[in-house]
């Protein structure tokens, strides 16, 4: 079937407001959901599920969080990993100290704690913008890392400073295998991604974008700047916090504060730059790109090089390609892969008659 809207007249605002107004898109989304919930667990092996796809999903969630703050509300942040750490350590401490709470509640509360910390570090955003705000969030990043490294209570006085996630139980089921962890991660990420998509197309999302695009007009329309920016910090950090908890429980199992260092913040920032600043879809595309590109490069090198390429050459090559792509996207296509995808769809809508 050709991809177009012809003949699909929107008879009501309700239909026009639908999340995927074009029928082909709706079909594609259902197909995708079936694939990721059913086909992927059946086809992928434990290595792919546990070491590639699950972390990819978790990082997508963190990227959604950062995209809410930076892409939608226009507040540049380098504290992403710090807020993930808050979520990780909050979930762990809730889990071991208040064992009565269901695990999902731990995860949600972990997000809430991260949200509160995020809002505190978001307070300077009323006065400072851009580069200076980035520096302030950098301070948050270092401060949070320092606290979790140096205050023993948070790691339950583990001598190595490492926390180990206790076994997971949800509704009497034990979440243990790679498939189970993948499905848990996928469910959480799918629900939260839908929530984010809904928020950005509602009043709160419009208020974020208004503050991003022209804060003086936003204020004159009645959008209070401080509480709008804080809501972006809070909700963004909630997403990062839940991502941190999943990172610990569903991916690594044991975690030290260094897993949430500045490099991680930059990694997530690059994801949204490549995937698309101000796009929920772009958060997934960017995470996918950054997680999968090294694997792809390795495979290509193995195919053509047969061991002639040294491992460190590969690592350098990877850095060069990333650097080049980031510069490319910053200069040529600031809206990233998501925008390229949109352009492709617009072309497809006209195909095969371009005029």
């Amino acid at each position, binding site marked *: 079937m050709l991809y177009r809207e012809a003949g699909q007249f929107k008879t009501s605002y309700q239909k026009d407001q639908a999340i995927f107004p074009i029928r082909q898109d709706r079909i594609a989304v259902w197909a995708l959901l079936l694939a990721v919930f059913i086909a992927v667990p059946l086809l992928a092996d434990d290595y792919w599920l546990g070491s590639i796809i699950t972390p990819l999903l978790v990082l997508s969630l963190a990227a959604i969080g950062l995209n809410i703050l930076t892409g939608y509300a226009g507040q540049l942040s380098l504290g992403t990993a710090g807020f993930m750490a808050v979520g990780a350590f909050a979930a762990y401490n809730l889990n071991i100290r208040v064992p009565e709470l269901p695990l999902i509640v731990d995860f949600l509360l972990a997000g809430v704690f991260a949200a509160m910390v995020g809002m505190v570090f978001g307070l300077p955003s009323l006065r400072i913008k851009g580069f200076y705000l980035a520096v302030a969030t950098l301070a948050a990043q270092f401060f949070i890392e320092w606290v979790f490294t140096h205050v023993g209570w948070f790691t339950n006085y583990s001598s190595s400073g490492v926390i180990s996630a206790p076994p997971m139980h949800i509704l009497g089921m034990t979440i243990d295998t790679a498939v189970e962890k993948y499905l848990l991660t996928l469910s959480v990420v799918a629900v939260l991604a839908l929530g984010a998509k809904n928020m950005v197309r509602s009043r709160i999302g*419009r208020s974020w974008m208004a503050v991003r695009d022209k804060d003086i007009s*936003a204020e004159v329309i009645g959008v209070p700047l401080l509480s709008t920016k804080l809501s972006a910090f809070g909700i963004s950090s909630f997403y990062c916090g839940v991502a941190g908890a999943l990172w610990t429980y569903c991916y690594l199992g044991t975690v030290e504060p260094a897993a949430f260092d500045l490099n991680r913040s930059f990694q997530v920032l690059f994801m949204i730059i490549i995937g698309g600043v101000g796009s929920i879809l772009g958060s997934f595309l960017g995470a996918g790109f950054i997680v999968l590109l090294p694997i792809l490069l390795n495979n290509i090198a193995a195919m053509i090089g047969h061991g002639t390429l040294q491992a460190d050459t590969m690592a350098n090559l990877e850095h060069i390609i990333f650097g080049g792509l980031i510069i490319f996207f910053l200069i040529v296509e600031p809206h990233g892969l998501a925008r390229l995808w949109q352009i492709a769809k617009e072309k497809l809508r006209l195909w095969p008659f371009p005029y």
Partner: protein
Amino acid sequence: MSGKRNIGDVILRCDNISLSFGGVRALTNISVDVREHEVMAIIGPNGAGKSSMLNVINGVYHPQEGTVTYRGQTRRAMKPHETARQGIARTFQNIALFKGMSVLDNIMTGRYTKMKRNFLWQALYWGPNLKEEIEHREVCERVIDFLQIENIRKTPVGRLPYGLQKRVELGRALAAEPDLLLLDEPMAGMNVEEKEDMCRFILDVNDEFGTTIVLIEHDMGVVMDISDRVAVLDYGKKIADGPPEEVRANQDVIDAYLGVAH
């Protein structure tokens, strides 16, 4: 101009407003009344303090002296988002749209203060939030019809030509259903045809919804045509205030515009 409107009581009173930036005196002792349902124009040479006056009225600037009384409530310093809630809307001299958003989203943002659902409902979207979105979409669609911009409602505003952007900015202000609408040079940089359209929109808004309008405009022809009253500023002082014909004949005003030395 239709005679249907009844110009009512004073809705906005500015009393002895003085505003300075460092050493620059932008406004000196300005007192102005605006009556309900009227169209009032503020004119004056460049740098006279016209935009500053609007900024004082909707709380962007806080004057060092004087008070603003709106609907009987007297204040000096108020945040712009609070004046918005009281029914004051505004457009800017330099277009201040939300560049990354579509026309419809820009106008929907104008409904901000009227929407009530919290973010949890919004994250869920369906149910009460969808109902609210649709209700407000309907109001915005009426604004879109009124301004005849149906064909561009989904276009990102950054892609529109200047004249249309000005129109969208008016739409965003109208979406708030304001009682008092402040327009800072709504016709600047437009061609004759666009100006005529804009005049018609302004008069229609005033006529159909009874909105009180304060506008700044340099085109004297337009000012004489559409305003009930004209206030003239020069070097931060008010030099005249009255019906258009009277102001046009005022010697101080003629001097100010011809640049007679002070």
